[in-house]
């Protein structure tokens, strides 16, 4: 993805989340099996279904829960590229966002 495309996608996601897109933040995967099931759902999406990724991933545009979990500390987050490197997501993200595939 070129830098312009990345910025455009980031804008799009920002707007969708700010616009109140309802995503599945419930059902945080507790086991690898549950984690894998979410990945399978993501794999079944059309490659350009950005909204589908956000909904299934359970994206929010702020830190999550009491412990304030966020992309910034997530294993899949590339700080300098501001990028989620989980292959099934592979989207630009802001450090203060979170999704239910978060892992540390």
């Amino acid at each position, binding site marked *: 993805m070129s830098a312009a495309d990345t910025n455009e996608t980031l804008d799009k996601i920002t707007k969708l989340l700010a616009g109140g897109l309802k995503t599945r933040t419930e059902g*945080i995967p*507790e*086991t*690898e*099996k549950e*984690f*894998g099931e979410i990945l399978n759902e993501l794999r079944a999406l059309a490659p350009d279904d950005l909204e589908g990724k956000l909904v299934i991933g359970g994206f929010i545009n702020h830190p999550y829960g009491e412990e304030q*979990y966020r992309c*910034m*500390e*997530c*294993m*899949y*987050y*590339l*700080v*300098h*590229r501001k990028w989620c*490197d*989980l*292959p099934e997501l592979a989207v630009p993200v802001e450090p203060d966002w979170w999704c239910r595939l*978060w*892992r*540390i």
Partner: protein
Amino acid sequence: MANLLWLQGGACSGNTMSFLNAEEPSACDLVTDFGINVLWHPSLGLELGDNVKQILLDCISGKIQLDIFVFEGTVVNAPNGTGNWNRFCGRPMKDWVKELSDAAQFVVAIGDCATWGGIPATAPNPSESVGLQFLKRAPGGSLGTSFKSKAGLPVINIPGCPAHPDWVTQILVAVASGRAGDLTLDEFQRPKTFFTSFTQTGCTRNMHFAYKVSATAFGQRKGCLFYDLGCRGPMTHSPCNRILWNRQSSKTRAGMPCLGCTEPEFPFFDLAPGTVFKTQTVMGVPKDMPAGVDKTGYVKLTAAAKAAAPAWAEKDIFVV
């Protein structure tokens, strides 16, 4: 001259394959340069049938001095403790193992099966397999906790699935050349010289481990395999990144997670679906932390490391 006898129990012969590939020293060097006389070995011995049995009987009676008894594979006790599923030269192998171990100056267990049961002893363990002096982490095994060979040492355990060729030949040379007294063993009777450091020691991905950059697929050139792909390098005692495999590489260097094959619990989680090549987490936090690290420290370290990570850590640095 040191007489060596090598037998196999419940095994795949992987450790024999590994042994025959040794380079420093090689299996031939053991004979030509280090005075080891191989009395019999399942893949090398010329004798068959009654002639093999006679060698074993002569070792037990003392007619032949048995200096080193090497055992590869589990001690099979099925069915019902009889050991009849693994018979050799007319009787259960477990009976040969007991008597030969009592007759030997040194007993060396090679590979996970012989050390602590390995894959055959994984639940439900239908072959009732045990290692020579351990079953997984529990001391005892086939010979019992109090066993000492004639030279006064417990079984020397060289684990691995398989063990690295040079771990095997270097320990055999140390024993054969009278330097066994220099070997110090850890709590699982592994030679400390090989099993004090971790697989992670010397791993080329340590920088990515430190900066918490994750590999997300096998064979990727960037990233550490701990966070997503279940690498057990930080909690596995082995020299795999110090004494390289084929003198070239290691699993982690090639982008494949360490499976922890030198530890008693291998294979972990009884191979339940979804547990292999996947970091096991509870609500996103790894179940098994790097050795000596607690959860709070780990979370704090992650936050600091992520914040400090330089841009290059996110790129391929091993460019072809």
